[in-house]
């Protein structure tokens, strides 16, 4: 029996030893991890940015996902850049002029500029880029639309570029298109196959140094950036596939800035020391769209929208019965601005209604009056019938991926009930919403668009000519709506070179959409962000003071980042944490030892009793 005892005693010891090793292996990196931030503080700091969505490619001709295009904004300066207040400011071009017919744009390229590899940056690079997109269909995936109206491009001399357009246009054709270095790209046998993700050459404040797929992207400051090199050594993007993890990483000191927070995450970060939160004005609108009787490009009815909604009075009554302010405070917890037209407040020159227009205000009694007068009779049950005497019921569609849609739907259902219109609500997948809205298969649905600084595109998709084919292919229509008077306004603003006059026409056009009650803008949601203010300051918001740092039209936000000097950081940062306090490590080690010891003791005791039994 003793004979049996010894080996099992040994195996017990072996097991205990293995367990202890495992425990130490688990704890060791934790201890090692606490030393990491100290190392990082020694080196010149780079801002660590959390990104949530995947990167498709860093080839600027092909990149379409928001993460990639957002990073490429740092890499390539445009001909003309959006300023801190979304106004046009010099980019590669320091001044430009437009011919009186709006068809010839001449850009002066700033003298003495260099690419990040010290090669000169001239009008040749710009001309090469424009022509590459124009002539090579394989390079049109991302920016083909930007050069569609460009007839020819010519570098008159190293500092003069002339763009000739097919039709006059008021919006500056120098925006948005990333200008690439000719000397790098012309060497590529097939530029559409060039990955452009290692030691890249750029003209913006940062250039891509390395890219580890699915893990991180490293950008370094470009010493030749014409506005002067950034004050940080670079940007390091790290993937966090959900914002909850990104928030923990911010608290943990793994990243320095996180965007796209939910209201709950935002609130949880508000009072953390060393962290600053920002509720920035967003550039996305959320609206209730009403089907005006969709018609396809061939003029045939499209989809299955309730025919009663073709009456503008019914649509206006619905808009009147929706209390935007309540939706903003109750559903969005006040984290946004009340909606006016489709142009959010971050674009002050285009936002707001045309002079003389009074927008409908929330008024249930008024809405009921409108409907009574228009002949929508109320039955004994309080529900209305349409003009042909059939019961009037409507459907409301929203995205199941957005919790605010379901919440808004409950409110809207209540209000429409008060004006005698029963509502069936369905929350479906985003792709289903896209499909059904394109094909006019809706009565009401919640929609939203992110809006760029120039209103032309958003207006263009409301023209009669933007209606889709019967199968949904062809052009994209925002609201399945058509009004020749609107088309005339669109065309007028499209070629109006006087900025003030154009802004006026734009407001008139957007006001028409509101008046037609086809797309009632509920709110512009704020964008919620947070960053480690114990490590970096100087982030520039767009628009100035009220806007966002991440996801700008431009590079201002992170280009402005300034490291908090080492002295202040150490005095400010002690309480706040990037590592873990020493006593926690001690506690963890003690706990591990106690647990291991207890397990060993218990098994030995059990073994002893078992042996006794035998």
């Amino acid at each position, binding site marked *: 029996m003793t004979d049996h005892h010894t080996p099992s005693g040994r195996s017990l010891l072996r097991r205990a030893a293995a367990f202890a090793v495992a425990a130490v292996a688990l704890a060791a*990196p*934790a201890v090692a991890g*606490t030393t*990491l931030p100290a190392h990082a503080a020694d080196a010149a700091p780079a801002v660590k940015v959390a990104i949530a969505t995947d990167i*498709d490619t860093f080839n600027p001709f092909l990149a379409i996902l928001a993460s990639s295009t957002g990073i490429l904004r740092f890499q390539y300066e445009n001909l003309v850049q959006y300023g801190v207040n979304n106004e046009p400011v010099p980019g590669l071009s320091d001044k430009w002029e437009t011919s009186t017919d709006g068809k010839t744009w001449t850009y002066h390229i700033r003298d003495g500029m260099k690419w990040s590899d010290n090669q000169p940056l001239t009008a040749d690079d710009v001309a090469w880029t424009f022509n590459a997109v124009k002539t090579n269909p394989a390079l049109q995936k991302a920016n083909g639309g930007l050069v569609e109206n460009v007839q020819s491009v010519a570098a008159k001399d190293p500092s003069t570029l002339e763009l000739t357009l097919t039709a006059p246009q008021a919006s500056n054709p120098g925006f948005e298109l990333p200008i690439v270095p000719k000397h790098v790209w012309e060497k590529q046998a097939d530029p*559409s196959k060039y990955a452009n993700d290692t030691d890249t050459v750029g003209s913006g404040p940062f250039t891509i140094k390395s890219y580890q797929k*699915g893990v991180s992207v490293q950008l370094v400051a470009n010493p030749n950036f014409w506005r002067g090199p950034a004050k940080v050594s670079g940007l*390091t993007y790290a*993937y966090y596939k959900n914002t909850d993890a990104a928030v923990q990483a911010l608290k943990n000191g793994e990243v320095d800035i996180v965007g796209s927070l939910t209201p709950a995450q935002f609130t949880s970060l508000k009072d953390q020391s060393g962290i600053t939160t920002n509720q920035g004005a967003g550039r996305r609108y959320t609206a209730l769209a009403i089907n005006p009787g969709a018609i396809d490009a061939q003029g045939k009815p499209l989809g299955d929208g309730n025919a009663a909604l073709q009456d503008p009075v019914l649509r206006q009554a619905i808009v009147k019965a929706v209390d935007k302010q309540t939706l903003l405070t109750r559903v969005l917890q006040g984290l946004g601005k009340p909606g006016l037209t489709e142009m959010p407040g971050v674009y002050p020159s285009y936002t707001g209604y045309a002079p003389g227009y009074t927008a409908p205000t929330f008024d249930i009694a008024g809405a009921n009056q409108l409907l009574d007068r228009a002949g929508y009779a109320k039955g004994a049950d309080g529900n209305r019938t349409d003009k042909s005497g059939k019961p009037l019921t409507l459907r409301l569609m929203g995205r199941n991926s957005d919790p605010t849609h379901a919440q808004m739907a409950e409110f809207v259902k209540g209000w429409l009930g008060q004006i005698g219109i029963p509502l069936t609500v369905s929350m479906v997948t985003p792709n289903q919403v896209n499909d059904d809205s394109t094909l006019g298969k809706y009565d009401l649905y919640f929609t939203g668009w992110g809006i760029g600084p120039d209103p032309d595109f958003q207006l263009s998709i409301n023209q009669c000519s933007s209606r889709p084919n019967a199968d949904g292919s062809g052009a994209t229509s925002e609201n399945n709506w058509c009004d020749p008077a609107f088309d005339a306004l669109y065309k007028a603003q499209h070629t109006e070179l006087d900025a003030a006059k154009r802004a006026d026409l734009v407001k008139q056009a957007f006001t028409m959409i509101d008046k037609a009650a086809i797309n009632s803008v509920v709110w512009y949601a704020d964008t919620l962000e947070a960053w480690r203010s114990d490590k970096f300051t100087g982030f520039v918001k767009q628009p100035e003071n009220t806007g966002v740092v991440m996801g700008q039209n431009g590079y201002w936000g992170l280009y402005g980042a300034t490291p908090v000097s080492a002295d202040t950081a150490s005095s400010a940062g002690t309480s706040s944490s990037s590592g873990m306090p020493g006593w926690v490590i001690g506690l*963890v080690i003690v706990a591990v030892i106690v647990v291991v010891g207890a397990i060993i003791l218990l098994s030995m005791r059990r073994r002893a009793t078992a042996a006794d039994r035998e």
Partner: protein
Amino acid sequence: MSIAPGSDALARDEAGIDTPGDAAGPDESGPRGSTLPRYIAVKAGGALISLAMVVVLGFFSFRILPGSDPAINLTRGRQVSAAEVERLRHEFGLDQSLIAQFFRYVGDLLTGNLGTSFVYNQSVSSLIAEKLGPTLLLTGTAALISITLGLWLGQRAAWRRGSWFDKLQTGTALTFWSVPTFWLGLILLLVFAGMFHLFPAGGMTTAGSDETGFAYILDALHHLTLPVVTMVAVVYAQYLMVMRASVLEEMSADYLTTARAKGLAEDKVRTRHAVPNALLPTVTLIFLHVGGLIGGAVTVETVFSWPGLGFLTFTALSAPDLPLLQGTFVVFSTIVILMNFVADLLYRVLDPRLKAA
């Protein structure tokens, strides 16, 4: 039971823990007693048929998703003309008839070409190859630990059934089994990353560090801990329960009485006699589950930002990036089918009773 439906590849098998009765592994109606080559041929044939069905199903099911025109979805919200959308559709081959697309897809597949991703401008096989490593590291580690832990605890629990150890272990394991993976993952993240700063909140290595060698391995281990703990906690119960049931079945067997009569210590009776026999049904079960485990990694990868196949599939769904979706679907399914095939073979090899007669 021997052929898991394709959908199992994409979700943890939530159906419940196998009861001892059907834990016995491969299809009982199989060609018991036939010759080994014939047995293999029949099983391999079955596996190939499943694979062919997966290919067909994968192709058509992703095309009937609502909003499934990738050319429109990829250009949504950008300044793009109708002509450009048409050009993209042509480039993707979506302007051809469904049948023509299908035969082109199958033809490519037979030559080992999974196509080119719509979004990433890269071949699907290279994309999958890049992400397969991290997924295998995560699921392999988790499988190894959960199998070892489950089997060890299972046989101990069975040996002392009804004891506090048995009750505690089965209770704990079943509690973790019932917990949703993403919830457990988020809680661990909140406590160990956000609160105590013990582990990183995501990723496979520290972003922006250029560590090599031992430091790199340590860094990866540090990142691996929380996702592995989450996966292990959620799945080890199935191994524990099956092992426990198997050992219980063996405990009343006559050969154990014989062993005890020889004067063997209880420990030896258990480790030398009961456990080897109880392992028989368990081993095949392990292979049946390992396939599913890889699919189950999708959730864990999303919670812990692990750069694996799961997130690739998730991203591909939004376009939808049809070639990539089909590719990951085929790869996930092939793993499951292959593992089932291995389980069938192993069972035959391990159980002498199947060879005789």
